[in-house]
C-alpha cells in the first residue's frame, strides 16, 4: 500500500495539545520533509539554493548530505522550464518538491503551473498518471523588500481550477499539511510567510497529516467571525486583547487551505455571529477576501447584521520605505478598525 494511504488521518487538536515537544517553524517543515523523503524514495527536492548554507530559511540544511545529490539539488534560474521538468518527473512517477525563495518567482512559471500542471488530469479525462507535484514558496516580507520580493499571490492561484492551495500558520500545520501535500496525487502550492518563521509550537513526532479543506477555529467568540489567512492569523490574535477591552468577542477561523476551502466552517460561524471580517495578506481587489465575502453573500447573506469588512494590502505594488510599508501592510490595527466597523461603532 502506498505510504500516503497509511498516514494518520485523524487530526490532532492543536488548541488542546500544547504540552508536548516544541519545534521552530523551520524545524517542523524540515522534519516533515525528511520523514516524507525517508518514507518514499520517489520524493525529491529541487530549487534555487536548496543546498546552500542558508538552506531555504533553514528548511533544507543537511538534506543533500543525507539524501544525496540526485534527490536534493540546486536548479538553474529557469523557473518555467524547471516547473515543467517537475511536472514531467511527476508524470513519470516521481514526487517532486520544488522550492522557491519568493512567490514572486512563480510568476515566471505560470505557463507550466496553470496551462499544464493544473489541467493535466482534467484535459486527459482522468487518464493521466496524475501530477503529484508540490511547489513551495515563502512570502518574502522583510525590510524594504519592495515590489518584486514581497508579493502574496494566493489570489491568483485560488482562481485556478485543478490546484490545491495551502497556507499554514503554525509549525504543527506546516508539517502536517506538507506531509499531506507530498502524499497528494495532484499539484499543490504551499505558500509560506517569512514572518511565520518566528513561530514555534507543539509538533508531534513522526508522520501525521492534516486533511485539506479543513480549517480550525483559533478562538471561539460570539460577535464577529474573522477569517484570517496565513500571517494575518497572528495579527488577528494580537488584536484580541484590544478587542476584548472594547467588549468585542471575536471568533477566529484559520482555513489553512484555500483550495479546497472549508466553507462549512466559515458559514456555520457566520450564522452564529452574524458578522464577517476577512483578513488576508494579499491585495483586496479580486482576492481571497473577495472570494470569501462572496461565498458568505451567496450562502449566508440573511444572517449578516452588518456589511462584510475586508482587510488586505493596498492595491499598489509594495513600497520600500518603512513609512510607506507600514501604511501598505495590513496589521492588528486594521483588524481592530474593521471589527469596530462591523459592530457599527465607527
Amino acid at each position, binding site marked *: 500500500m502506498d505510504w500516503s494511504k497509511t498516514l494518520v488521518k485523524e487530526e490532532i487538536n492543536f488548541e488542546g495539545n500544547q504540552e508536548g515537544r516544541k519545534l521552530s517553524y523551520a524545524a517542523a517543515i524540515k522534519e516533515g520533509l525528511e520523514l516524507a523523503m525517508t518514507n518514499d524514495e520517489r520524493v525529491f527536492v529541487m530549487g534555487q539554493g536548496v543546498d546552500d548554507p542558508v538552506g531555504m530559511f533553514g528548511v533544507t540544511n543537511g538534506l543533500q548530505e543525507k539524501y544525496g545529490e540526485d534527490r536534493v539539488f540546486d536548479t538553474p534560474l529557469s523557473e518555467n522550464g524547471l516547473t*515543467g521538468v517537475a*511536472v514531467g518527473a511527476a508524470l513519470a512517477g516521481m514526487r517532486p518538491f520544488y522550492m522557491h525563495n519568493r512567490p514572486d518567482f512563480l510568476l515566471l512559471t505560470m505557463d507550466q503551473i496553470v496551462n499544464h500542471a493544473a489541467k493535466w488530469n482534467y484535459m*486527459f479525462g*482522468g487518464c493521466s498518471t496524475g501530477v503529484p507535484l508540490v511547489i513551495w514558496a515563502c512570502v518574502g516580507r522583510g525590510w524594504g523588500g519592495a515590489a518584486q520580493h514581497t508579493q502574496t499571490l494566493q489570489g491568483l492561484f485560488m482562481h485556478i481550477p485543478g490546484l490545491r492551495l495551502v497556507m499554514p500558520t503554525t509549525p504543527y500545520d506546516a508539517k502536517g499539511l506538507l506531509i499531506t501535500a507530498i502524499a497528494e496525487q495532484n499539484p499543490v502550492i504551499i505558500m509560506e510567510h517569512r514572518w511565520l518563521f518566528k513561530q514555534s509550537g507543539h509538533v508531534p513526532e513522526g508522520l501525521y497529516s492534516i486533511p485539506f479543506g479543513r480549517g480550525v477555529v483559533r478562538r471561539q467568540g460570539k460577535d464577529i467571525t474573522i477569517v484570517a489567512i496565513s500571517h494575518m492569523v497572528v495579527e488577528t490574535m494580537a488584536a484580541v486583547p484590544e478587542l476584548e477591552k472594547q467588549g468585542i468577542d471575536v471568533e477566529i477561523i484559520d482555513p489553512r487551505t484555500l483550495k479546497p476551502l472549508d466553507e462549512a466552517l466559515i458559514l456555520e460561524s457566520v450564522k452564529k455571529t452574524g458578522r464577517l471580517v476577512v483578513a488576508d495578506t494579499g491585495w483586496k481587489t479580486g482576492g481571497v477576501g473577495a472570494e470569501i465575502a462572496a461565498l458568505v453573500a451567496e450562502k449566508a447573506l440573511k444572517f449578516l447584521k452588518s456589511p462584510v469588512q475586508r482587510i488586505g494590502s493596498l492595491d499598489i505594488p509594495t513600497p520600500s520605505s518603512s513609512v510607506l510599508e507600514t501604511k501598505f501592510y495590513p496589521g492588528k490595527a486594521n483588524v481592530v478598525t474593521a471589527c469596530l466597523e462591523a459592530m457599527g461603532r465607527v
Partner: protein
Amino acid sequence: MKLNIPASPLVYDTELKDIPRKTLRDLYRVMLRIQKVELKVDELYHEDEMKTPVHLCLGQEAIAAGVCSNLNTEDYVFTNHRGHGHYIAKGGDIKKMVAELYNRETGCSRGRGGSMHLIDVAAGLLGSSSIVAGNIPIATGAALASAIRKDKRVAVTFFGDAAVEEGVIYESVNFAMLKKLPVIFVCENNLYSVFSGLSKRQAHGDIYRRFTGLDIPGIRIDGNNVVDVYRTAKEAVARARKGEGPTFLECQTYRLRDHHGTASGADVGYRSQEEVDAWASRCPVKNFERFLLKQKLITPNNIKELSGAIDAEIKVAFQFAQASPLPKEGEVANYLFK
C-alpha cells in the same frame, strides 16, 4: 512570395545492411497507418461530427515513424497539438484516438481533451500540450525521473519550428545538458507557424545549430526520409540510454495541410500551389513505398495486403467512435483531480 522548395529530391541510401528488412517494412507500415488515419479524418472532417480543431500531420509521417521505431513501450513520448502521428507511432490505441476526435466518452481523454490532447499511458505516450513548447520541459522532467531511478528509459519531445522561439526550450536544453538527461528533442521544422513563414520569425534558419553554445549535438536531417530519421534517432536513443545525454534533431519537413483543418493553404495566399505540389511530390510514404518496391524489399501483393488490413482497422475505429456515447452532461466536473 518566397518559395520554400527543397533543393534536393528525396533519395534513399541503397546500402541498408544496418537495417533489418522487417524494420524497413515496419517503418513503411507505421507511416502508412498514420497517413491513412489522417486521410480518413481529412475526408470526414467536413461532416462536423469531429468537433475539435484537427492539426493533420500529412507530409510529416516519417519523423514519428522513424523516431518511435527506436523506442520501447516504457520509453516516454510527449507530443504537441499536431500529435496524431506520434500517438500512432508510439503504439497508441487508434480506436480511442478516433473516439477522442469524435468527443466521445470512450476517447483516450474521455472527450475532455480533443485532437490536441491525446494520451495513452500504457503505450508510453504520457500526454500532449497545445501550448507551443509546453511539452519540452515536461519530457525533460520525465528523463530526469529516468536518470534519478537509473531505469534507462528515454524521453522524446516532438515540437514544431516555432517552439524554438520560446524561452522554455533554452531552459530545457540547458538543464538536460547540465544533468546529461536521456531526452531527445525532435524539432519538426515544417517551415510555418500557422500562416507565418520561418524567415519572418527567426533571425537565423539553422535551427539545428541553435543550442551549440550548450554543446548539445545538433543534427539536421531530411525529415521526409524515414531511413535518415530512423538511423539518426537510433544513435540518439543509444546515446541517451548509455547516459551520454540529450540530442537535438532538426527534421526538415512540410505539412501538406493548413495549420489546422483540411485545406492546403494555397488558396489563401500564404504559400503557393507550386510550393505545396513540390512538397507533395516528396511524400515520405509514397516515395518510400516506391523505393521498397524497386529494391524488392516488398512486393505489390504485400502492399495490397497491408493496405487492406489497415483500412479494415480504420473502418472499425471510426465505427467504434461514431457508435460510442458522448460524455454525460452531469459528469462535466469529473476528473479535475486524480
